[in-house]
């Protein structure tokens, strides 16, 4: 049987609520029904203790210098709303589900998730609706074209400098 991995990242701080929800029995069942077999958690400074589960194979760590390889090797990325993580995940062309931390309101980071969701680059949700999203969203509908404006920015710069 082929393995399908989901990678969860909370970034440089902590987001215990996300870790809690994602390891919830209901979420794990939903993931399993969608064919996922293992889960890697990057839990940051959170105090949440990850318990082993009989549904999915769960591994976790606090931080790594480079989470790139874990992203590349995964089939789905569940991420906090940080711009760095979002852009990195999209760079690798992975299906991405962003979970907004509602306790960090007025945070301009959710603007980015909202906007990219409108453009169909990712889905975003809250902790409450996480399992529902995993159950019902079709990640194959997402735009897999990279978000890369570099060429256009270059043009504008060269035009300005008259070269």
């Amino acid at each position, binding site marked *: 049987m082929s393995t399908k991995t989901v990678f969860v990242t909370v970034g440089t701080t902590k987001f215990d609520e996300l870790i809690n929800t994602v390891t919830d029995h209901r979420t794990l069942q939903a993931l399993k029904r969608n064919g996922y077999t293992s889960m890697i958690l990057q839990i940051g400074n959170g105090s949440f203790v990850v318990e082993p589960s009989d549904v999915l194979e769960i591994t976790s760590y606090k931080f790594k*210098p480079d989470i790139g390889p874990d992203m590349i090797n995964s089939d789905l990325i569940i991420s906090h709303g*940080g*711009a*760095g993580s*979002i*852009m*990195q995940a999209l*760079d690798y062309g992975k299906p991405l589900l962003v979970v907004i931390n509602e306790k960090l309101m007025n945070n*301009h*980071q959710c*603007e*980015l998730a*909202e*906007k990219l969701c409108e453009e169909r680059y990712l889905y975003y949700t809250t902790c409450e609706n996480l399992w529902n999203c995993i159950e019902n969203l079709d990640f194959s509908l997402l735009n897999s074209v990279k*978000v*890369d*404006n*570099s*060429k*256009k*920015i*270059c*043009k*504008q*710069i*060269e*035009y*300005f*400098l*008259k*070269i």
Partner: protein
Amino acid sequence: MLLFIMWLLVPTIFSAYFSGRLMYLIFQNLTNTKSLKKSKQPFRTLVVIGSGGHTAEMLRLMNSMNKLKFMPRLYLLADTDTTSRNRVENDENGLDWSIATIPRSRHVNQSYLTSIFSTIYAIFITVPTVISFKPDLVLCNGPGTCVPVCLVAFIMKLFHYADTSIIFVESICRVKSLSLTGKLMYFIADLIIVQWPELRKKYGHRVKYLDEGLNS
């Protein structure tokens, strides 16, 4: 007597001239009326590298630029930021480039009082680096580090030392409003590029949306 008049007059003329020039430069920026003379090539380019996502964005941009037109390139980054340093060293595949470091103006959890001094210290270190490099182009995309650098470049322009173009590319994570750095750059950058149409709408002609106005 003559000396006394000179003593009064010379500073007055100087300050009148430079404050006039200051207003002229800012006016030129705000109305986007600056036009470059047919410029010499290649451009001496100073790239201000931030951290994390900013670094990634800037390096991606650098990689799609024609590096033969932007030489030599000096990457300016914070001395504590070894991650960014490694990324620059990995990604930069052209010729004629180097890295310079400046002290970080504020460390995480540093108190505001001491951070005033460390900011001043950071500016002191930045000034000779920027002046001796004498860039034709300063390219930056958001982190606080770029503010002192751009100020120095702007002052160089004010005193006719160099004709530096300052280009600010707002990070893609800013969707609805410019970052604090962006708001400061509003007055001193020659060109501001934003990556979402909402920002273009909000700030009008002062900012450019990607390749707007260019055909094909």
